[in-house]
C-alpha cells in the first residue's frame, strides 16, 4: 500500500536519466535537476531538485538533499527531502532524515533522527546542529571526515577543554614560589641553587622560611619566615647539622 502510493516513479533507469552504474565510484559533489539512479557508489554530497534512487547494491556516503529519496541500497549520511523519503526492504540508512513524509518498509534498517516538521528549511538546520555528533559516533567515519568538519571539531572540543584547566591549575603554583624567590634569593631561578645557598649563607632563617613556603606552596612567605627565623635562631643545631655530613665524610675518608 504505502509503497504503491509513495514511490510513483519506478526505480528502473529511464532513458535520459542519470545513472551511476555498479562499476562506478564518484567522490565529490553531484548537483542537478533530474533523477539520479545510483547503482554504484557516490561519496561526498548530492543535491538534486528531483528524485534520488539508490538501487540495491548502490552506496551513497554523502549528505543528501533532494525532492524525493527512494532507497533500496545504502545511504550513510544525513538526508533532507522536500517531499518524501522512502526506505524499501533491504535499504540501510544511517543518518538523520529531514522530510515531511517518511516511509519505512518492513525489512529496512535505519539509525538516526527523524524530523518531519512542516518547515523544512529551519528544521533542517536545527536537526543538523543537534544531531550531527551522533552519527559520527556511530561509525560514519568516512562521511564524518568528509562532511562534518564542524561537527568533528565540536566533538574534539570537549577533549581539548580539560587540558586548559589543568594547565591553569599548574600555572598558579609557580607564582607563590616566585615571590619567595624574589624576597629571599632574587638571582636564583632554580630550587637547587636556593638549597645550596642555605648551606652557604650563615643567615639561614630567611632562606629556610622561603624554602618552606616554596615547597608547601603557601603564598605568604613573610609570615612563615618570621616564626621560622625565630625557630632557626633558637635551634642552632640544624645549621650545625648541615656541615656535619661533610665532616663525617672527611672523617670516613
Amino acid at each position, binding site marked *: 500500500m504505502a509503497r504503491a502510493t509513495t514511490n510513483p516513479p519506478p526505480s528502473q*533507469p529511464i532513458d*535520459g*536519466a*542519470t*545513472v*551511476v*552504474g*555498479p*562499476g*562506478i*565510484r*564518484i*567522490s*565529490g*559533489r*553531484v*548537483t*542537478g*535537476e*533530474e*533523477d*539520479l539512479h545510483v*547503482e*554504484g557508489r557516490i561519496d*561526498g554530497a548530492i543535491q538534486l531538485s528531483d528524485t534520488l534512487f539508490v538501487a540495491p547494491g548502490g552506496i551513497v556516503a554523502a549528505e543528501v538533499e533532494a525532492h524525493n529519496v527512494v532507497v533500496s541500497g545504502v545511504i550513510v549520511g544525513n538526508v533532507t527531502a522536500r517531499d518524501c523519503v522512502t526506505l524499501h526492504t533491504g535499504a540501510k540508512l544511517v543518518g538523520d532524515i529531514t522530510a515531511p513524509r517518511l516511509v519505512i518498509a518492513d525489512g529496512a534498517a535505519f539509525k538516526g533522527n527523524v524530523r518531519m516538521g512542516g518547515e523544512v528549511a529551519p528544521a533542517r538546520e536545527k536537526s543538523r546542529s543537534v544531531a550531527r555528533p551522533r552519527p559520527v559516533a556511530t561509525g560514519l567515519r568516512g562521511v564524518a571526515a568528509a562532511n562534518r568538519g564542524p561537527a568533528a571539531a565540536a566533538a574534539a572540543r570537549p577533549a581539548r577543554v580539560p587540558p586548559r584547566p589543568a594547565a591553569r591549575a599548574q600555572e598558579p603554583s609557580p607564582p607563590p614560589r616566585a615571590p619567595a624567590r624574589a624576597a629571599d634569593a632574587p638571582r636564583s631561578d632554580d630550587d637547587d641553587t636556593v638549597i645550596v645557598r642555605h648551606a652557604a649563607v650563615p643567615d639561614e632563617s630567611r632562606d629556610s622560611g622561603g624554602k618552606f613556603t616554596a615547597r608547601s606552596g603557601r603564598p605568604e612567605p613573610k609570615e612563615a619566615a618570621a616564626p621560622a627565623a625565630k625557630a632557626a635562631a633558637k635551634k642552632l643545631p640544624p645549621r650545625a647539622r648541615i656541615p656535619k655530613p661533610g665532616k663525617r665524610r672527611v672523617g670516613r675518608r
Partner: protein
Amino acid sequence: MANTVIGSSIVIDGEITGDEDLVVRGTVKGRVSLRENIFVEDSGVLEANVETATITVHGRVTGDIHATERAELKSNCRVVGDIRSPRVLIADGASFKGTVDMDA
C-alpha cells in the same frame, strides 16, 4: 545496460573512477579515471583530466586526455588539452587546441 550516464542537468565536481562505460551529457569537473569507454555527447562538458581506454568526444573537453587505446574527436567537438593515445582520430570540423602524443 549498466551504462553510467551523467544527465544533462547534472554537475559533478570531484572524481569519477570505475570500470564501465561512461556517457557524459552533463558537466563533470575534476578527474575521470576509467578502464572502459567515455562518450562525451553534444551537451556534455568535461573539465577534467581523463584517463580511459577510449574516449569519443562530441561535446567539449577541457583537460588532458590519456586514452590507452583510442581518442576520437568528432565534428563540432571542442577539445582543449593534450592528448596522449596510440590512436587519435580528429574528424573534419572538430576544434582542438593542444598537443598530441601518439607514442603512448
